[in-house]
């Protein structure tokens, strides 16, 4: 029978609006009244947005802006010195576009130092360059014979305002101290236009609105072109990280919204009973998700802005340029807010659909829907993992040639999807494995299996956290474990190397005439003076020859200096001559170096001669020794600039090489201070030497340790946020357990097993996925290959695979055990 018109008549026109308003109002009130139930999701979103706000602010403002050179101009042209083409271009642009500002630079060296600065001719009141200049004291130069210096140049040249700077035959009076507020590290001496005699860099600023830059000439850039030339800029990276964070949050939030929907099942049933459609009911859950996302994101922005305002002064100090109060990449922040809302909406979509599948009568009685049919197959996950494997393989194949970024990103996305798809299978498998386990274990693993909509999402998120950590760990271990292309810190904090200006310098292959002995004596005296000032009794003379090592095969080549293993050097590092093979050609502390094949010790005019017979790795006996005898000696220092690999005196004599002093390694008992380093630089510069001290390159251990810590914290954080949600689904069972006499120990055990099991499977799946990623990439990578994975961060993997699950179980046991709410009938109101 067809419904009568009296019963089934149409809504008033535009009638969805009141419905939406009513549903959103209820969702908002739900959130307001019960925000504590959503506090985990709210906190996650707020923290993610706050971190993104501050992080992207720091990331964007720490390096110099790529647009810094433009001043207020929209077009910038650079020329290598003054030329007829430059002059013609300036004339043309001036005719066509009016104002043009020319800034000329000539690179100069501070005497006794490798530090350079620019002699800059710029009109401080020019039409476009004013943002690039700021007066600290005094005044800008107004005529020839006047100069304003940056404070760094003034200090280096030992000049103050009023002094006269003699540059060759030219004398200029220092009339002011200036800076580039957009780059406080930039060092220059400012003179009036026309006072730079031999500019090697000319910048022309002008405005050519609406004109395609390429029509103006090959040297013209616009800010848009600069932005396009750097797709992996801080904004893009921050946005990618924010997207990843939101993906993890969405996985956790699915559980949050599901529990929220189940808590209000009877109300939702009532809504259906009074005539809400499935669409209306789903809208409540979705609106709750959107509102949670909006509130979390707004809280995050406020917290992030507060943190940004507090941190900005420190950032200015460390970034060496002025940072505006609101100089934040708002597009990225707005995108992060939008991502948060979208993530929350997407997370709420599945529970919204699920809740509409529950019959109204079942909902009214508060009975949750039975778990959906079990998916026992791991096939979809494996299929996607295989796709990921090949994508990462493609990335590895082109990685060495500078491409493969797209394949890499797609590969990791596919791997993430594979992990999420596979997660429920492992829960089912665990439940099967524990069929005969004690009650608490059995109950916990069965609940994980039954409620795998929640536990599967949490497991996926934990696995992804571990996957990221393991990928970083294994890749770092592989990269830092490469004996050929040795990576890591250059020196220890107590070491300092003084380099002579030649003949071989700090690197190989710079053979030329030996230094005059009087210079060497002066430099040696300076080195001893520096060592004395540092309180060091260890000053090691570093000698080099024309010899270096070469890997005559595919993959990475040898990197690093090859000093001579003088008796003094060996003694300084406690290496007894008796411990060395008398026929060893090379000593190295690099693990695995002695087992490398296709090594060549090349010397003399090997590189000057070019490839022999067209073979790139030909090894003529006149200047090449194939497969030199290499002995590993752990006593040598590990720094990349330190003598970690040395040529023996046996080889030096055998190959008739001429050792020459190329520097001195000074070892202090204590970490060198900035003042000591500055003084050493000044002394070294006076003697014509340069100084190298510890750089900021981290050790492999520190990278791996940090990756482990971050991975564990991420996994435990997700676990902490998920476990309550997962257990809340089985709260009815726990009540029954309590009613039948189970003690708090049983309840604790159930929670501990839930947490421990999730952490363990997450660690195993994440580690396996991480290895899949690096194996897939390395397998096809011509630079490293699978052999690079032989260096395994065992201790850190054990921490992730053992300590993390144990810690999670212990945490669950300690925090659980509270008496569940009684069985009393709980009315809705």
């Amino acid at each position, binding site marked *: *029978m*067809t*419904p*009568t018109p*009296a*019963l*089934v*008549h149409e*809504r*008033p026109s*535009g*009638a*969805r*609006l*009141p*419905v939406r*308003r*009513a549903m959103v*109002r*209820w969702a908002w*009130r*739900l959130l*307001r*009244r019960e925000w504590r139930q959503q506090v985990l999701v709210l906190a996650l979103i707020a923290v993610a947005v706050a971190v993104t706000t501050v992080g992207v602010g720091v990331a964007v403002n720490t390096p110099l802006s790529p647009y810094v050179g433009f001043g207020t101009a929209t077009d910038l042209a650079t020329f290598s010195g003054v030329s007829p083409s430059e002059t013609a271009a300036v004339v043309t642009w001036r005719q066509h576009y009016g104002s043009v500002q020319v800034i000329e630079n000539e690179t100069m060296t501070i005497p006794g130092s490798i530090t350079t600065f620019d002699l800059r001719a710029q009109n401080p009141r020019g039409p476009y360059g004013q943002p690039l200049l700021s007066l600290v004291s005094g005044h800008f130069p107004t005529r020839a014979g006047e100069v304003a210096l940056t404070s760094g140049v003034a200090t280096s040249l030992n000049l103050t305002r009023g002094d006269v700077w003699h540059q060759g035959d030219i004398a200029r009076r220092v009339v002011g101290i200036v800076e580039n507020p957009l780059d406080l590290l930039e060092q220059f001496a400012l003179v009036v236009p026309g006072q730079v005699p031999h500019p090697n860099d000319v910048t022309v600023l002008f405005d050519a609105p609406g004109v395609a830059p390429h029509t103006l000439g090959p040297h013209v850039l616009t800010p848009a072109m600069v932005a396009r030339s750097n797709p992996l800029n801080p904004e893009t990276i921050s946005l990618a990280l924010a997207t990843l964070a939101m993906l993890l949050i969405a996985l956790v939030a699915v559980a949050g919204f599901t529990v929220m929907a189940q808590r209000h099942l*009877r*109300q939702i*049933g*009532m*809504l*259906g*009973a*009074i*005539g*809400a*459609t*499935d669409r*209306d009911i789903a809208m409540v859950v979705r609106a709750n998700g959107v509102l949670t996302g909006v509130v979390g994101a707004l809280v995050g922005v406020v917290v992030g802005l507060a943190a940004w305002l507090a941190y900005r002064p420190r950032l200015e100090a460390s970034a060496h340029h002025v940072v505006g109060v609101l100089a934040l990449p708002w597009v990225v922040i707005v995108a992060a807010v939008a991502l948060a809302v979208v993530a929350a909406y997407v997370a709420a979509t599945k529970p919204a659909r699920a809740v509409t599948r529950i*019959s*109204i*009568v079942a909902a*009214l009685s508060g009975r949750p829907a039975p778990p959906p049919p079990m998916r026992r197959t791991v096939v979809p996950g494996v299929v996607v993992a295989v796709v990921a494997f090949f994508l990462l393989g493609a990335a590895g194949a082109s990685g060495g040639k500078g491409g493969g970024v797209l394949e890499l990103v797609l590969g990791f996305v596919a791997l993430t999807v594979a992990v999420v798809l596979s997660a429920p299978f492992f829960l089912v498998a665990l439940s099967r494995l524990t069929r005969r386990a004690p009650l608490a274990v059995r109950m916990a693993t069965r609940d994980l299996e039954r409620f795998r909509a929640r536990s599967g999402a949490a497991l996926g998120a934990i696995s992804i956290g571990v996957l990221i950590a393991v990928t970083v760990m294994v890749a770092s271990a592989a990269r830092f474990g490469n004996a050929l292309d040795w990576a890591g810190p250059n020196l220890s904090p107590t070491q300092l190397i003084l380099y002579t200006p030649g003949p071989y310098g700090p690197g190989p292959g710079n053979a030329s005439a030996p230094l005059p002995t009087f210079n060497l004596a002066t430099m040696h005296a300076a080195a001893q003076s520096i060592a004395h000032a540092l309180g060091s009794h260890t000053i090691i003379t570093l000698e080099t020859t024309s010899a270096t090592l070469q890997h005559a095969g595919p993959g990475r080549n040898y990197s690093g200096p090859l000093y001579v293993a003088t008796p003094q050097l060996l003694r300084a590092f406690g290496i007894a001559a008796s411990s060395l093979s008398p026929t060893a050609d090379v000593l190295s502390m690099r693990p695995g170096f002695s087992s490398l094949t296709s090594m060549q010790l090349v010397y003399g005019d090997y590189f000057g001669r070019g490839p022999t017979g067209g073979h790139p790795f030909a090894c003529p006996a006149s200047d090449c020794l194939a497969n030199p005898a290499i002995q590993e000696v752990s006593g040598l220092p590990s720094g990349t600039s330190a003598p970690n690999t040395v040529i023996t005196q046996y080889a030096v004599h055998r190959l008739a090489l001429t050792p020459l002093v190329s520097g001195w390694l000074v070892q202090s008992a204590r970490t060198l201070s900035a003042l000591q380093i500055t003084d050493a630089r000044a002394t070294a510069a006076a003697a014509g030497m340069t100084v190298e001290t510890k750089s900021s390159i981290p050790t492999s251990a520190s990278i791996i340790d940090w990756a482990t810590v971050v991975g564990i914290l991420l996994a435990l954080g997700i676990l902490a946020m998920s476990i309550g949600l997962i257990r809340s689904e089985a709260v009815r069972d726990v009540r029954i357990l309590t009613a039948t006499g189970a003690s708090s120990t049983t309840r604790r055990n159930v929670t501990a097993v839930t947490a421990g099991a999730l952490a363990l499977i997450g660690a195993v799946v994440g580690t396996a996925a991480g290895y899949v990623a690096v194996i897939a990439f390395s397998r096809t990578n011509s630079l490293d290959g699978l052999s690079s994975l032989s260096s395994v961060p065992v201790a850190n993997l054990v921490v992730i695979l053992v300590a993390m699950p144990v810690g999670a179980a212990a945490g669950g046991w300690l925090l659980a055990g509270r008496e569940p709410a009684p069985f009393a*009938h709980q*009315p*809705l*109101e």
Partner: protein
Amino acid sequence: MSFLEMRAIGKIYGAGSSEVHALTDVDLSVERGALVAVMGPSGSGKSTLLSIAGSLEEPTSGEVVIDGASLSAMSRNDKARLRRRTVGYVFQDFNLLAGLTAVENVTLPLELDGVTARTARRAGMTALEELGLADRGNRFPDELSGGERQRVAIARAVVGNRQLLLADEPSGALDSANGTVVMEMILAACRRGVAAVVVTHDATLASWADRVVVVRDGRVVDQSATLTGSPSSSAPSSPPLER
């Protein structure tokens, strides 16, 4: 002509060995303005009967016709629309939305039906005024007494001129005085032409009905009975209203 007609209704839960016959061959008809009480022991199928009558559940067999329209021919959305415009529910435990005020709870079916908030509010306040709750409109459910909550639930069930009122133990969570007030209100609705079906265990309250249907083991064993005398004795100050 009956406003609600249930013909040969059967409801089976489960399948195979776990099959449970909740209702078997049940016929029930309710005219406009009539109050029918459904009584029976726990598990006899009373609530299932009410759920099927209100389109909350599908019968396994038989047909439900409301105001001449068969529910079997309706889509889920048509049924939802029917519940918004024609059928009103009153539950034992009120089932008000805790996050909405009394008047917002009352206006919910109207707003779900696309009525503007202002118009719906006006109608909601009128319904509350008629039930003596004009000053409680802006209170949240947890600020109301049990009797007040159930009156709000009744207002929600009748707002928008709905013609079929289905009440499942409407006084079950109330004391006898409030239970009487609730029954008076249901009777008042019937006096305006609303057809009402009330499931109750309370013979005193059932005595207010025009007809009592007794259900046992999923079958209607008697639907001709009327219980008399009790209302006046249980609620001397509020005798059943004349219809």
